[in-house]
């Protein structure tokens, strides 16, 4: 008990007495620990955050009616969605396509959940406003050019039921239903969407006068390729009317690019950590080497090699512990700063990293102390005390 008390008193006294040098050592350890915990936190969080960025490429899974089914009922969509982890769903957009007439020309109208479409296809570039309420239309760029309409204009859309066109040719006065819409914006995608007009589901139901099932559903899910494949298998197997498919272009490419990015961050982390750890070790070595005289004096006073090594190691480990503890928090702050700046979202705290950082910094400092203390204790005290 008493012996241990003495041990701690010697360590703390030695640390306090040599304040400036210990500050130097502590700073070195802290910087190392900060880099360790910061980079590792970033490394763990990058795939998740980057994965979210990759959702910009749009839907990575679609539901289509399976074989015999006419369409997908909204209840089937709901039951299919229960197989997917709710937190991973970025957006769901069901689509129902109808051919409608605008100025006597056929145009494809898509009825969709407009908020869902916004979430699944963030790359849609809208001039004007995204439709906020019923009665508003989002029209493709080509349609806008063709009809010379733009934001704020009205567009009358006529729906002629398919059966009417064949049977009631003579009944030309009955030309289906016409609904006036306000164009809220034009859509620029560089794809076939530029030839469509988009409206909400309830609008297309009002226009066609019937509630029909969806032709297809687009989903954007933040998950890896394997996870997505397991969803596809489960849904296609368990929900009879829905056949889920992966959008290969998006999923395949995401896997390739994301794995490269992760490898990049990993390699950078390893290189930086390696160099930082060596840096910490050299600083600690310098701090200890400087105390050869002290070691010589203690030896001359009769201290055993073992007790000297123990004391120096205790000192080093205490520094390592304090530095590692401070560093693990600073590292989290740094990772948070990076995450806020790059991804605009906060980072998840990895509690496991605190012990890891502590162990690593204590280990590195202990190792860095051990070597010079060892070589110092092997020297004849008389030589050391004399100098050189």
């Amino acid at each position: 008990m008493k012996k241990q008390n003495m041990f701690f008193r010697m360590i703390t006294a030695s640390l306090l007495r040599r304040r400036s040098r210990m500050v130097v050592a502590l700073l070195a350890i802290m910087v190392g620990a900060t880099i360790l915990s910061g980079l590792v936190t970033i490394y763990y969080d990058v795939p998740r955050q980057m994965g979210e960025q990759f959702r910009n490429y749009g839907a990575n899974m679609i539901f289509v009616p399976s074989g015999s089914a006419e369409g997908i009922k909204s209840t089937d969509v709901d039951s299919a969605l229960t197989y997917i982890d709710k937190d991973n769903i970025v957006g769901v957009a069901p689509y129902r396509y109808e051919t409608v007439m605008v100025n006597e020309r056929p145009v494809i109208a898509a009825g969709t959940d407009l908020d869902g479409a916004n979430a699944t296809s963030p790359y849609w570039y809208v001039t004007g406003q995204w439709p906020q309420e019923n009665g508003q239309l989002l029209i493709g760029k080509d349609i806008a050019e063709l009809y010379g309409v733009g934001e704020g204009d009205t567009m009358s859309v006529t729906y002629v039921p398919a059966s009417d066109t064949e049977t009631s040719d003579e009944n030309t006065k009955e030309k289906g239903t016409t609904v006036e819409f306000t164009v809220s914006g034009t859509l620029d995608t560089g794809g076939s969407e530029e030839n469509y007009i988009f409206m909400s589901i309830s609008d297309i139901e009002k226009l066609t006068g019937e509630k029909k099932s969806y032709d297809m559903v687009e989903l954007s899910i933040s998950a890896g390729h394997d996870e997505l494949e397991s969803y596809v298998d489960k849904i296609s197997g368990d929900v009879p009317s829905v056949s889920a498919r992966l959008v290969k272009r998006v999923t395949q490419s995401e896997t390739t690019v994301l794995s490269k990015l992760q490898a990049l961050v990993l390699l950078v982390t390893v290189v930086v950590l390696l160099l930082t750890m060596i840096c910490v070790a050299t600083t600690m070595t310098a701090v200890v080497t400087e105390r050869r005289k002290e070691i010589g004096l203690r030896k001359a006073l009769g201290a055993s090699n073992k007790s000297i090594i123990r004391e120096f190691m205790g000192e080093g480990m205490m520094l390592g512990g304090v530095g590692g503890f401070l560093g693990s928090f600073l590292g989290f702050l740094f990772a948070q700063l990076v995450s806020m700046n790059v991804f605009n979202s906060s980072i998840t705290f990895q509690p496991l990293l605190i012990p890891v950082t502590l162990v690593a910094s204590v280990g590195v400092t202990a190792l860095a102390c051990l070597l010079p203390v060892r070589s110092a204790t092997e020297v004849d005290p008389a030589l050391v005390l004399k100098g050189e």
Partner: protein
Amino acid sequence: MFFRMLRGAMFRQKGKMLMIAFTILLGASLATAMLNVMMDVGDKVNQELKTYGANITVVPKESSIISELYDVEDSDSTQSAHLLESELGNIKTIFWAFNIVDFTPFIDTKVTLSNGEETKLVGTWFNHHLELPTGETLDTGIANLRTWWDVSQGGWIDEQKNGFDKSAMIGSALAKKENIKVGDAIEVKTKNSKETLIVTGIYDAGGDEDDYIYTSLAPAQRLANCEGLLSSIEVSALTTPDNELARKAAKNPEALSVSQYETWYCTAYVSSICYQIQEVITDSVASPVRQVAESEGSIMEKTELLMILITIFSLIGAALGISNLVTASVMERSNEIGLMKAIGAKDGSILGVVLTEIMITAVIGGVAGYFAGYGFAQIIGWSVFGSAIDMKPMVIPIVAVAIIAVTLAGSIPAIRMLLRLRPAEVLHGR
């Protein structure tokens, strides 16, 4: 005397000086590697993102409005507008030709199979070898632009082999429906002509393309009765993420002032590359594929920002590490400095000797560190991207200035503190 002292110090304390040099080496190599990787990461990620396929499509001016309405109107294909195949090479002559990675022409037409079933046939390049007027060569085609295609049976059509223009690749859905296997001959006809094609591969594209037939350009043009004509071109270009100027220009390039126009035209924005393609292909409309172009920009920005922050962070770490060690090593020389003062050395000359010593060490460490950093950067480049990292000469002065500044910052305060001590006290010990 100065040099003797210097030499003495350097050799007498070999171990200590080596350690300082080593730490500076580590710091310099870290800085070199990180700065180079950071500056090159944009280009590298951009290359990787090319797996998402083309980011620009070029279509004839007239058809850009009604192309999708073909299904409904079924117009005669010779009547509608087309691009000229002879102008394809022009794409590699634009200002940003160097940024054009791949481009592939397409001609599509409706064909009837022998059993009366209708389907879409697309003529294109697979791995076309192109000799450019500039003397360069380029291998391009959909093998590069459809990397996500899973060719489950057979293989890609090889345009370097004889008889490639009698081959076809068909989509998995069509193969299943019509029960076609690799090696089968399929007969396709339009009202213009008839072709017999050998199926060399069946692909799974995970989209509408699974119902199509892909073949080379010549037979498809004969079928469509459009010799020398194309219906669209897909271009994959390395681009700079859009900013305000690019968005403004995309709407109407004429609205820009002269200097803005110059900046825009000479920056690899997707809109300026589109504009330049339109200049060299008659009656064409080049438009960015938003799905690819927009996402590319945001992912590149994020990756670059991430690397910049990690770089800054590790540089601060390295700087602290070096100046820390330098401070520690100067402080331990209090005895020596005390002795020098005691025998009458001036503060200035002591400062000179110690600083020169450390600077020589720093230069040696820094030079060695640059080469070590070169190695680290290449290791990262090859193992992550499979290609060398472009070493920017600009990094050398940055690292040099940083190393000198950090070493000075680490040593000067310590030396000045030691100079303030009284020699007698120092020599006596404490």
